[in-house]
């Protein structure tokens, strides 16, 4: 266990060292550890470094990151007066800039339209999914929205898998969409696969939005408070 941690930390140290070397050789103002981080990200995307090579060490380092700052912060015992003298100005500066930055970031991301735009209904519907090299699987949905579905599957499909989805339900009729697996999680014996619709006709999308809106009113919608607040309901689709 400890040997593995050491070995994994070693990989991270190599990236950190290379980053520092690049900063020094090129005389840039970008911190070496930031360059190391970007390099590691690139190597992971290329598949050279796999998540399992480093995951344990990463978890330990991120969990105990504060430990590594203690000696630096203890240096304050030599400059305590300074903080004491300008305490009020410091707090004012921090509070004002936090409010400004939080407001601008939050509103910018929301206005530019990230995140889910659709109401999600927790409901079990029969769905058939077909992948390019998979035989058709008949399973159930856990929830559904105009943007995608979450399905309960015995089989784990890899993130990025392209799928053909067919949903049939007496209230909905038949809905066909192309989708992509964007999230996977293990729950009990099964897997939950989050599928985003990449290609769906406008008519089918509206049917789904309509359906979730109707069901959402009296069926169990997503219960977590933070999420329930987050869906904007497209008003033009209400009936």
């Amino acid at each position, binding site marked *: 266990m400890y040997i593995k941690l050491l070995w994994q930390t070693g990989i991270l140290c190599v990236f950190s060292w290379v980053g520092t070397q690049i900063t020094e050789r090129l005389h840039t103002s970008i911190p070496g550890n930031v360059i190391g981080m*970007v390099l*590691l990200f690139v190597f992971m995307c290329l598949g050279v470094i796999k998540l399992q090579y480093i995951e344990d060490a*990463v978890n330990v380092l991120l969990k105990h990151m504060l430990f590594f700052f203690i000696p630096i912060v203890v240096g304050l015992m030599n400059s305590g007066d*300074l903080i004491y003298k*300008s305490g009020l100005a410091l707090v004012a*500066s921090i509070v004002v800039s936090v409010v400004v930055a939080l407001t601008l*970031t939050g509103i910018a991301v929301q206005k530019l339209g990230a995140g889910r735009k659709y109401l999600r209904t927790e409901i079990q519907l029969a769905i058939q999914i077909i992948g390019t090299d998979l035989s058709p699987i008949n399973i159930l949905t856990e929830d559904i929205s105009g943007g995608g579905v979450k399905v309960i599957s015995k089989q784990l499909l890899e993130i990025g898998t392209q799928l053909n989805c067919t949903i049939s339900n007496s209230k909905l009729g038949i809905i066909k969409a192309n989708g992509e697996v964007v999230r996977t999680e293990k729950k009990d014996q099964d897997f939950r696969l989050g599928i985003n619709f990449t290609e769906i006709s406008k008519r089918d999308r509206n049917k789904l939005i309509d359906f979730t809106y109707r069901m959402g009113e009296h069926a169990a919608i997503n219960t977590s408070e933070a999420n329930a607040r987050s869906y904007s309901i497209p008003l033009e689709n209400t009936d």
Partner: protein
Amino acid sequence: MNTLLIVASLGLTIGVYSLSRFIYLRGNKHPLLNVLFLSTFLVIVVLRVCHFTYDEYVSCKDIISYFLGPATVALAVPLFKNRLVLKKYSIPILVGILFGSLSGMTTTVLMGNVTGLSRTMTMSLAPKFVTIPIAVEIAKYIGGDQALVAVFVAVTGLISSAFGPTLLTRLKVTDPVARGIALGTTAAGQGVAVGLQEGEMQGAMAGLAMALAGVVTALIAPMLLPLMR
């Protein structure tokens, strides 16, 4: 003698950290029981009581601080795990983080000028939104004090994570991606903790924003801040 000092100060730091973490966990992770503040306070108390100077304690600093390098590199992992969301919402996420980092630094410098803070103080405040290892490195270039920066980052994280969620709700920022990005950009590690309490998506986005905001700030701070006086 020197080796003895190193071993003793290492032991002190590890002991104090374990104790602080224990108190923090016992206190149900209350944000005011900040592990960094508790540990620092305890170390200073021990040093004062035993009549040691900072110079004697600091012998362990190089060894411990060395690990900030790999710890920062480790931030690539949350970035990698969320790469699909990043790809999908790259424009809103990047614009949001850029807005946040730029406005945060500009406001800090303006406030510093208005309230008459010294240049060193202002430059130690400027990188306070990003995670400590990156902020400390940025401070080196722009003329801030490393110990001050680390404290300011921790205080900023504390304030932002305590009031951020309420502020965002008041502003009708309800989108989980937007909330996560805003928290991660302004409160770094503590933003991730608060984000995770709200939901999986908010936590993941905060982790991603923490890494990206670090890169963005590291790129623009050394160019922008010398221009503002």
